[in-house]
């Protein structure tokens, strides 16, 4: 045995050492290859900060922009477009007659329209198109027929190969009359207030090529043809969505902003927040939203900028008024008075979102209720309400939440708050699909949810209507005055009068205590400090990708 030990040692050092060394060398070689890779011209960017972290100029390129999205796209057909990723991509490929000026001024600018005018009675819009606008992919010149086709298709007047999801944005459209190759008139049955706020500059106002839609059918959604400065290039599901510069662009947007520098814009779907943080930190993507928990870390790093954009999205704890216990308004008031909303904002969102006291956010052009009561936790008052309702001995309630950011923390705080007034709250964490099914059902009690929103308050009030009961009105609340106001406000064209109507609607919600408002969402866009981004808050808090600069 003594003899063999020696040889073993020799063998060990040879074999074991060699394999490990080989693996290590292979790793290093492969790692080193990466450093040579970004050779094509982007070394000009500043090289300070490369020591601290490799980001953000590790893989940068002045002609390619890479952006993190949370979800992959499903369809860019303006009739479908169910997620906001689709919207950000669509904004580079498809255009409407008008658009919101990037930068958040709230001004409308003409894009495909040379001229556009709403009649005094609010019943018609005359438009003249820009001449010589070419659709991508050789689908020819834009004419008024394409406008007619696009709007009537979205409004559901003409039967399409895919059913429309945005028909309500064209609720009063009668027809689009074509009066010439480049001229036409949009005719309405009744005035429609959101027309110039939400319909024309939003998804419902995007114009597609009639020939392309008819030729491509259902495939149009994944190979869209528009008039934008960028055209559809490729889509590798789960990996990347690519658009590339369109050389024959008509140039309307460039009258308002400098020509973009990017040859390609790539969206990378990264669902996991940690993975997204890492991708931003290492420069795998140039820009993306981060989770509230990562804000401090990125803000402390000079290589990154965190750009919070307040959106119109709102989150709230809703109460099902058809539930036996919650049908008593005093129980609802007790709950509202017992909740500590400020703590929820800290725990659920690291204090990175604004507290909400009503439905419509202060960022909204009209409809924000400035004097909305701010409910601070008042346990005595809450107990008094409960007593009035006859529940001084306590009661059991259930709250459903889904897996959105912050939901769990909010529910846990609510649980602790309500325990103090003798309410035993059970929390049910459900995933998205199941949550919705339960929430629609009249048997649930409390829920937390947040909804996305666009620049008109009608897009928020609609979900609290009577006809939404059993669908998106999880409160199962139906108030006639509210309902009437919602309908009236849609056809009222005076912004001041509309403002008052929306404030009144929020007062009604407050009187009925159907909700404890929690927050207005902030989108936390984060990017390398050498990048400048361009935001369009009016469009679901989105950004105009091609207007980014490095």
């Amino acid at each position, binding site marked *: 045995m003594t003899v063999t030990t020696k040889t073993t040692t020799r*063998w060990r050092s040879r074999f074991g050492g060699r394999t490990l060394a080989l693996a290590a060398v292979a790793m290093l070689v492969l*790692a080193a*290859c990466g450093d040579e890779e970004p050779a094509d011209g982007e070394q000009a960017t500043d090289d300070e900060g490369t020591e601290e972290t490799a980001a953000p100029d590790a893989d940068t390129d002045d002609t390619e922009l890479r952006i993190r999205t949370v979800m992959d796209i499903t369809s860019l057909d303006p009739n479908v477009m*169910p997620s906001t990723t689709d919207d950000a991509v669509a904004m580079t490929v498809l255009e409407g007659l008008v658009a919101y000026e990037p930068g958040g001024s709230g001004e409308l600018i003409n894009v495909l329209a040379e001229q556009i005018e709403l009649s005094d009675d609010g019943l018609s819009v005359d438009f003249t198109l820009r001449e010589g606008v070419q659709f991508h992919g050789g689908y020819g010149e834009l004419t008024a027929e394409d406008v007619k086709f696009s709007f009537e298709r979205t409004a559901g007047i003409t039967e399409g190969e895919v059913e429309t999801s945005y028909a309500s944005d064209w609720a009063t459209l009668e027809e689009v009359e074509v009066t010439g190759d480049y001229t036409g008139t949009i005719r309405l049955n009744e005035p429609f207030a959101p027309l110039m706020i939400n319909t024309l500059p939003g998804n419902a106002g995007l114009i597609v090529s009639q020939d392309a839609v008819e030729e491509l059918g259902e495939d149009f959604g994944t190979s869209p043809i528009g008039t934008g400065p960028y055209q559809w290039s490729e889509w590798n599901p789960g990996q990347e969505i690519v658009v590339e510069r369109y050389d024959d662009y008509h140039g309307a947007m460039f009258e308002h902003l400098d020509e973009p520098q990017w040859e390609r814009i790539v969206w990378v779907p990264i669902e996991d927040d940690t993975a997204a943080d*890492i991708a931003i930190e290492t420069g795998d993507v140039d820009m993306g939203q981060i989770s509230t928990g990562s804000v401090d870390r990125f803000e402390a790093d000079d290589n990154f900028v965190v750009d919070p954009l307040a959106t119109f999205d709102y989150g709230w704890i809703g109460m099902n008024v058809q539930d036996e216990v919650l049908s008593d308004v005093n129980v609802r008031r007790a709950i509202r008075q017992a909740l500590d909303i400020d703590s929820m904002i800290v725990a659920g969102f690291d204090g990175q979102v604004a507290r909400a006291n009503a439905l419509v956010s202060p960022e909204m052009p009209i409809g924000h209720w400035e004097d909305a009561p701010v409910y601070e936790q008042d346990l005595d008052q809450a107990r008094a309400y409960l007593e009035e309702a006859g529940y001084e001995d306590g009661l059991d309630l259930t709250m459903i939440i889904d897996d959105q950011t912050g939901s769990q923390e909010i529910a846990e705080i609510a649980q602790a708050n309500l325990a103090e007034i003798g309410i035993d709250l059970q929390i049910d964490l459900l995933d998205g699909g199941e949550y919705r099914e339960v929430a629609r059902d009249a048997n649930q009690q409390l829920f937390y949810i947040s909804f996305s929103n666009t620049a008109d308050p009608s897009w928020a009030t609609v979900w609290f209507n009577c006809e939404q009961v059993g669908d998106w009105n999880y409160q199962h609340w139906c108030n006639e005055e509210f309902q009437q106001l919602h309908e009236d406000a849609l056809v009222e064209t005076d912004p001041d009068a509309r403002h008052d109507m929306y404030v009144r609607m929020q007062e009604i919600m407050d009187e009925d205590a159907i909700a404890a408002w929690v927050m207005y969402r902030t989108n936390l866009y984060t990017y390398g400090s050498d990048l400048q981004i361009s935001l369009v808050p009016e469009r679901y808090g989105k950004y105009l990708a091609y207007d980014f600069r490095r």
Partner: protein
Amino acid sequence: MAQYLLKRLGMTFAVVLLILLFLAVVPHLIPGDPVENILGPRATEARITQVRVEMGIDDPVLVQAGSFIWSAAQGDLGRDFATNRPVTTILAQAVPHTMALAFASLGLAVLLGIPFGVLAATKPDSLLDRFTSVLSVSFITVPSYVMALFLLLLFPIWLGVLPATGTGSFSDPLNYLRHLILPSAALAITWVGYFARLVRASMLEVVGSNYIRVARAYGLRERVIHYRYALKNAVIPSVAIMGVALGNLLGGAVFIELIFNRPGLGKLALDAISARNFPVLRGAILMVALLFVVANLVADLSYRFLDPRIRVEEKST
């Protein structure tokens, strides 16, 4: 052998059939309505009804199960609810990424685990043995997603080498390989530990056997004994476990694909679950199940091929 093969294949077939049957009823086991998830909040009632009919989710369960199995047998797994692309196309895009990850991890686990095990076995109870055994056990106990985050912090963030997320494309193999290093290392680490422990144990057993003693008596060099004679037998249990390992790696790939944002089978299945995208979900599960079954079959057969004793035993019975 032929009889065994036939029996084994028959069992595989039965397992696959069971999986198909399970998958056929999956949509009815998970709560939540897929149509609503796909169409979004603004969809009209008419559109919802139209899609329900197209998807056939209102048909009786048995009808759905039958038509699913029948078309699956013909290689048609239906179409993605959301994008209307054939599921087979989607799978064809995802499977290579997962296979690359699983095989790279398995390769890494074998390449590192076996030498580790041999190393430990050459000098049982020595300091080196203790050290490798502590190392192996800690490897086994570190969850892959923890290792993944650690590797991400270490390499792309602190050292600035190796890409953090994505896969690269197959047209640039070197780049693809670079994207593969961290995820496969994170995934492999547990199995490096397993293989090391396994090889050490079986190596010690073999080294104590008569034929090795004879070899020593003949004065063969220790290195030759270990590698020409001992390891050949000691490695057999490891081969058998490779099938299990591969299946396990495929399952573990879910976390890794999520963290490294690799568009593989695991991520596909996860996304499909939250969207209630049943055709894609079925396809992804079927694929993982098939790979698992095949891996086990191959491991079983190679086991018999490598170890003549099993064949002999069978003949004698």
